[in-house]
């Protein structure tokens, strides 16, 4: 009797194509990656159905949220290195703090911050990873010492000087923040005749 022999199939698959795809994806992700930076003031944004994106350049973001101690704080961030440098120069001149060239370069690479101008030097001197832990007290916005107003004024002027463009302002508020706090920021903006600004939100569907 003739036995039917089963043909043995090779168990090794050809991985070449899979390898190609994997590396293609890998290249894509490496090139598009902008690493997440730990935020100095984490904020839980409310969501909306709006589909418009935040602009990339010529943008200042005012973050309002509660710190670890439960007090609301205001942080400020400007996008664009040149504008940041120019703004820091302007603020230094206004508040009588001198910033070295090194400080300016570091400041240009930083993200949001929330300290009075007098303490800004210390924050700049910190390492990037320590800044988030530094427990920054927030930018003063009282009527007596309204530094947010000055920051806005100086950065808008810097944007016009450098790019000949009006700086866009975005408000990034914590969802649980109470309305009067937001109103205060809007009033500061409106005092400078900024009547149109962006509210940064997350996304959600229309069914809620």
């Amino acid at each position: 009797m003739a036995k039917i022999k089963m043909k043995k199939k090779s168990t090794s698959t050809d991985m070449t194509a899979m390898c190609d795809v994997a590396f293609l994806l890998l290249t894509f992700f490496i090139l598009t990656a902008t690493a997440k930076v730990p935020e100095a003031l984490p904020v839980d944004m409310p969501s909306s159905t709006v589909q418009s994106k935040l602009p990339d350049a010529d943008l200042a973001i005012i973050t309002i949220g509660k710190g670890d101690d439960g007090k609301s704080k205001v942080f400020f961030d400007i996008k664009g290195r040149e504008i940041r440098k120019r703004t820091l120069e302007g603020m230094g001149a206004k508040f009588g703090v001198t910033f070295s060239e090194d400080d300016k370069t570091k400041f240009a690479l930083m993200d949001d911050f929330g300290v009075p101008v007098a303490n800004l030097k210390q924050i700049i001197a910190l390492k990037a990873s320590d800044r988030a832990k530094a427990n920054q007290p927030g930018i003063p916005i009282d009527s007596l010492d309204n530094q947010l107003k000055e920051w806005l004024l100086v950065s808008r002027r810097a944007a016009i000087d450098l790019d000949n463009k009006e700086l866009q302002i975005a408000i990034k508020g914590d969802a649980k923040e109470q309305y009067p706090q937001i109103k205060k920021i809007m009033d500061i903006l409106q005092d400078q005749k900024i009547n149109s600004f962006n509210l940064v939100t997350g996304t959600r569907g229309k069914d809620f």
Partner: protein
Amino acid sequence: MAELNTGDGGGGKGGKVRSKKQNSKVDLTAMVDLAFLLITFFMLTTSLSKPQSMDLSLPDKDPKIDEVPVKVDENRTMTVMLGANNKIIYYMGLLATPIAGPKDITYGKDGIRREVLKRKKSVLEYSAAKGKPKQGIIVIIKPTKKSTYRNLVDILDEMAISGVETYAIVPEFSPEETKLIDPK
């Protein structure tokens, strides 16, 4: 495929010395593993999606001297008050002689959205009957001190969803309104 014919078996009758061909197939499994690991890492650390932003334009704060205050037909106004703990109260027209409400309502598609859409339609009918079909509803949003930022964004979002073009944020309350929204 990247595979070469190796061992031809016998042959070689001519007695030529052939160097033994080695199998050129490389095991790529480990490489693929590594590639996918890196992909996963980059996918998780990338923030691909930029946050959304909602445009908000407010009227000028200091009224111009020569500006005449615009009188608005009270039949077209809907007032929405945002209170503490996600509470909303709305009414149509004037509070003393309301067309509808004042009534408690919730956020979302079954609450405020349905109401806004209904009112929008009836106001358009009312305007059409008056011969000015372009005049739509005017929504006055009144956030109290206890309402949160989420409430404000939610209600602005509702305006965008239901296509209300005219709305205003007015954080001013008459004593009657305060009694309604914040009873002590």
